[in-house]
């Protein structure tokens, strides 16, 4: 589902003396349907960078990232947007929303974007918000005023609303209490069971043990560092 070949990445800081920082070289990764792969490595090793490149948020210097037949490295913006809408979900650590939009609509939006009927989408959103213990009285409010933990759970609900065939999860269980952590882990297990290919970053070792089938240490892709 996700095939990464010979991927490299450099950052060029034009306004800081033109420093060129190579951050990744010859990265390879293959994730099959129904499989969950954990990215590991110390902070700064490039876990999030790799994840952002798969999502098309960071530009690769060379190589290819094929997700469901689309090479994200060379695709046009509209092809990447279509891929994100239909195929590739991303649960980031931060919720970014338009002001004033009610929580229920924030969660239902990815479903509406793929043409699901409004009531069906809202039912799914209600179900997810309830599972993630967001009190019903908050559903009609914009999440911009919620606490950090609530925002994170809204973000997770939104990320799991559409049944994406491929998903990227950036620390989905960080700072959640035991009950909510359990819900998120079962959401991940359900996604795997229906055949989703998942790439995740988990600092929570027990969570990683439970849902991930294998681990990839991204440090081996860091230029100048012996594997």
């Amino acid at each position, binding site marked *: 589902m996700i095939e990464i070949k010979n991927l490299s990445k450099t*950052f*060029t*800081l*034009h*306004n800081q003396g033109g420093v060129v920082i190579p951050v990744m070289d010859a990265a390879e990764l293959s994730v099959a349907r129904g499989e969950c792969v954990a990215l590991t490595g110390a902070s700064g090793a490039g876990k999030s960078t790799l994840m*952002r490149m798969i999502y*098309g*948020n*960071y*530009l690769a210097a060379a190589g290819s990232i094929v997700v469901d037949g689309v090479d994200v490295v060379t695709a046009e*913006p*509209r092809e*990447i*947007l279509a891929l994100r809408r239909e195929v590739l979900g991303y649960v980031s650590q931060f919720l970014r929303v*338009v*002001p*004033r*939009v009610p929580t229920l609509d924030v969660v239902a939006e990815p479903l509406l974007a793929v043409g699901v009927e409004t009531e069906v989408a809202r039912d799914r959103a209600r179900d997810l918000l309830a599972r993630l213990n967001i009190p019903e009285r908050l559903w009609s409010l914009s999440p911009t005023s919620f606490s950090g933990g609530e925002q994170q759970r809204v973000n997770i609900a939104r990320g799991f609303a559409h049944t994406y065939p491929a998903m990227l999860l950036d620390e989905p269980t960080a700072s959640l209490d035991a009950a909510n952590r359990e819900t998120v882990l079962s959401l991940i297990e359900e996604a795997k069971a229906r055949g989703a290919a998942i790439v995740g970053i988990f600092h929570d070792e027990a969570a990683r043990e439970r849902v991930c089938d294998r681990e990839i240490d991204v440090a081996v892709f860091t230029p100048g560092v012996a594997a």
Partner: protein
Amino acid sequence: MTPLLKVENISKFYGHRIGCKDVNFDLYPGEVMGIVGESGSGKSTLLNCLAGHLDPDTGEVLFEMRDGAMRDTVTMSEPERRMLSRTDWAFVHQHARDGLRMNVSAGGNVGERLMAVGARHYGNIREEAVDWLGRVEISETRVDDRPTQFSGGMQQRLQIARNLVTGPRLVFMDEPTGGLDVSVQARLLDLLRGLVREMGLSAIIVTHDLAVVRLLADRLMVMKDSHVVETGLTDQVLDDPQHAYTQLLVSSVLQV
């Protein structure tokens, strides 16, 4: 899918000075493109060349007409271009007073565009005008008031209603949220985003506000000294800018 708009080698010169040079891009149906850059970078010149307000010195602006044919709007006759700007195109000005008739009622401002495309039944026109005022959150009780009696944010929303009432396929926007205070901006952005989604509009938005393009635009074009220096997916250009100027632009935004 075929592009709605194909822009090829558009350049505009003001004597020896360059307005914009060698601009090329395709815009597909339903796509929203942002053009960002500092004042004087040529973004408004480009927008005005695309919308037929300025004559470019070189290049073509090909638009897909309703019959599917691609027509160059630069060389088309003036009446044809005017017809386009009344039907398939809309232009939202930065200053609402440039896009509104200030001595005509709010309802009249919206109704006028309908009459320009042949609507004649007063009752229907008024009904549609009230419907559109509602969509942009202007109360029906204000339909007979003139825009001079409206706040800046309301004037801008009225301008949007006037532009969208004829169901255009392409909307040009020049700093649509410029000069409005932030709470009004948020409301307007939410409204614009909803309308763009609902109506499947394509839009080209010129702004210097990076937060606005992050929310509204699918893709981004960065201009500097009359040239396009970088293009790409909006979040990619903002989060991983490649060109020196874009890096400077992104790192100059104050964090709130």
